[in-house]
C-alpha cells in the first residue's frame, strides 16, 4: 500500500490559543503529501481521541505552549489505551522543557519538537515512525 497517504490529526488540546506553529506544520505536512485533519484550538483529550479513531489516522500531533503538556499528553495516551487504539502514534511540539520531554517520551510520546525545529525534520520523523509501523 505504498500509495496510501499518511493520515495526521493535528489539534491543540485545552485552552491554549498559540496556533502559529501548528498551522505552519499543518500546511507543511499537507504540502508534503500527507492527509491532514486540523481540529484547531480548544479540544478536550476525549474529542481528540474520538476524532482520531473515527478518522482512522496514523498520527496525532499535539501543540502545547501553555504549560499543560504534563496533563494533556499522558491523558491522551491513556485514552488511546482505553480505546485500544495504541497503534496511533502520538507526537507533539511546543514550549516543553527537556526534562519533561524525556519523561513524555518514556511514557510513549514518539517525538517532541521544540522551537526552531524545521518542518523537514518533522516530516522526516513522521515518515520514519509510520514507515516502521507499517513494515
Amino acid at each position: 500500500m505504498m500509495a496510501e497517504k499518511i493520515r495526521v490529526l493535528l489539534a491543540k488540546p485545552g485552552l491554549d490559543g498559540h496556533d502559529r506553529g501548528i498551522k505552519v506544520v499543518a500546511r507543511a505536512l499537507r504540502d508534503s503529501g500527507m492527509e491532514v485533519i486540523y481540529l484547531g484550538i480548544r479540544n478536550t483529550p476525549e474529542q481528540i481521541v474520538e476524532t482520531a479513531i473515527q478518522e482512522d489516522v496514523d498520527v496525532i500531533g499535539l501543540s502545547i505552549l501553555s504549560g499543560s503538556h504534563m496533563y494533556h499528553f499522558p491523558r491522551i495516551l491513556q485514552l488511546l489505551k482505553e480505546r485500544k487504539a495504541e497503534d496511533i502514534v502520538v507526537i507533539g511540539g511546543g514550549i516543553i522543557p527537556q526534562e519533561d520531554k524525556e519523561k513524555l517520551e518514556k511514557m510513549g510520546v514518539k517525538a517532541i519538537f521544540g522551537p526552531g525545529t524545521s518542518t523537514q525534520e518533522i516530516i522526516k520523523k513522521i515518515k520514519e515512525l509510520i514507515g516502521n509501523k507499517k513494515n
Partner: protein
Amino acid sequence: MCRGINLFNSKKIDEMKKSIDKWEKTTLEESLKLKSERKKEFFTSSNIVVKRVYTPLDIANKDYLKEIGLPGEYPFTRGIHATMYRARIWTMRQFAGFGTAEQTNKRFKYLLQHGETGLSVAFDFPTLCGYDSDDLMSKGEVGACGVAVDTLKDMEILFEGIPLNKVTTSMTINGPAATIWSMYIVTAEKQGAKKEELGGTIQNDILKEYMAQKSFIFPPEPSLKLVVDTIEYASKYLPKWNPISISGYHIREAGANAVQELAFTLADGLTYVEATLERGLKVDDFAPRLSFFFACHNNFFEEIAKFRAARRIWAREMKERFQAKKKRSLWLRFHTQTSGCTLTAQQPYNNIVRVAIQALAAVLGGTQSLHTNSMDEALSLPTEFAVRIALRTQQIIAHESGVTDTIDPLGGSYYVEWLTDKMEEECYKYFDKIDKLGGVVEGIKRGFFQKEIANSAHKYQEGIDKGEIIVVGVNGYATEELMPVPIFRIEPEVEKKQIERLKRVKMERNSKKVEEAIDQLKKAAEKEENLMPYIINAVKEYATLGEITKALKEIYGEYHELLIY
C-alpha cells in the same frame, strides 16, 4: 500630499542627482566589480525592498511641518510629548503572573522592589477564556501560564499590600475583560481607593482575538458591544483608566509582518471608535483614553518606522475622519513588548542580545511603556534571575546609552523617513482592502485576517527552512552543546489549591444574592443595557468568572473559529 522639492534647495538637489549618477557609474560600479553584493535584493520583514543607500533625494519632497512636525505637535510623527524621555523615562512594565494569586502577588512585590514602575498581570488560560478553575475545560491549565482568578477573592489576594491608587496596573484580558476589570475596581474600592483615582489598562481588544491569540468567547458583535460598555463606563467613572489597549502584539506573534501588524491594529482601532460613536459618545470624551500595544522585532529600522507611521496615521484619522478636537484624542500612546517569537530555545543566552536590540528600537520609536522578554521564555515562564536581566536591559538603555537625551534621534534619517512613508503607504493599501470587504468584523467572518497572518507565518518558516532567513543558533551557527538555563516550574498543587479556594468562596457567599445578581445581569443583557454596573454587582457577591461568562453565553452564544491554515 504636497509633492515637489520642499526640504532642500532645488539647485543642490540637481547637483546631488548628478553626483549620484556619477557615483553609480564609477565608485559603485568599481566596488561591485571587485565583490558583488550578498543578495540580489534586500527586504524588510514586510517585503519592502531596501535600497542600497538613501540620500536627501528620498525625502526632498517632504513637507516637514505637515508630515513630520515637532514633538508634541500634529501629526506627532516625532513623538506625542514635547519633551519625551528628557522629562520622564517610559514606564518599565514587566508582564507577570503564574500559579496562585499569592505567588503572583509575591512576584509583583519583587518587581516593584527592583525598580519596576507599573504592574502587568498575566492570567492563565481558563481565566482568559472565562472558565472557572474547576471546569472540565480548565484541566491542566490552572495557573500554568498566568495567574488563576475565579472570584473577587483571588483579586483581593493578588493586590494585597499593593496600593491600587498609587500603582497603575495593566491587565491582559479580553473575552472576560468587563468581569476581571469589575473585580479590580471592587478590590481597589475595598482598599479605600476611589474609582476616579485608578490608573491602568485592560487589554479588552476583542477584534484581534479572532485574528490571533484566540481567547474569544462570544461572537464578534456582542463582544464589540461589551467593549463599548467598558469604554462608556470608563469615560464616566474612571477618567484615568485606559479601557482598551488596541493590540498588534498578538497579530504579529501569530505570524503577521510589520505592515500587517500596523494596518490590522489601526483598522481595529478605527472600528472601536466607530462603534463607540454609534453608542452616542462624543469622540473627545473617549478617544484620549484609547491606548495601543505593539510588538518590536529584530528588523531595527522597520520597527522604528512602524511606530512613527502609526502615530501619524492615527492622528490624521482621528482629526480628519472623526473630527477630534482635543490634542489627546489624536495621540497614539502605546506599550511595546519585545518579540516572543524571535526568542530561541537554542543558545538561550543569545536572547538577551535580541531583546536589547528590540527594546532599543521601541525606545527610538517613542514608546510610552515597555516590557522586555526574558532570555528563557522559549523554554518556560521566566525565572526571577532572567526577569531581572530583562528589566536591567531597559534600565541600561534609559540611563547609559544616551538615546533618551534627544527626541526622535532618527528623525530626518533619509532611510527612516522614507521607510516611515512606505509603511504608511502600505498600511493604507490594507485599509482599502478591509473597507472593500465591508470592515473588520466582516473580514474576520470571512477569514481574511486569519489567512493573511497564516500566509505570512508560512512564508517566514519557509524562509528559515530554505536558509534564506538565518536565525543565529538555530539554522546558522548552531552548536551541539546544550546551554542549560534554570527552568521555572509551577508547583503542581496549584490546581488543587485553587479549586479548594473556589469551593470555600462558594460556600461562604450568599448564594441567593449571587443568583439574583446573575439574573439581573441576564435581563440587562437582553435589553442591551450597559452591563458594567450589573457585572460589578455580581462580582461583589462573589459570583465566579465562570458563572458570569456562562450567563452571558446564554444570551450571546459562543464563537467557534474558522479552521484556516
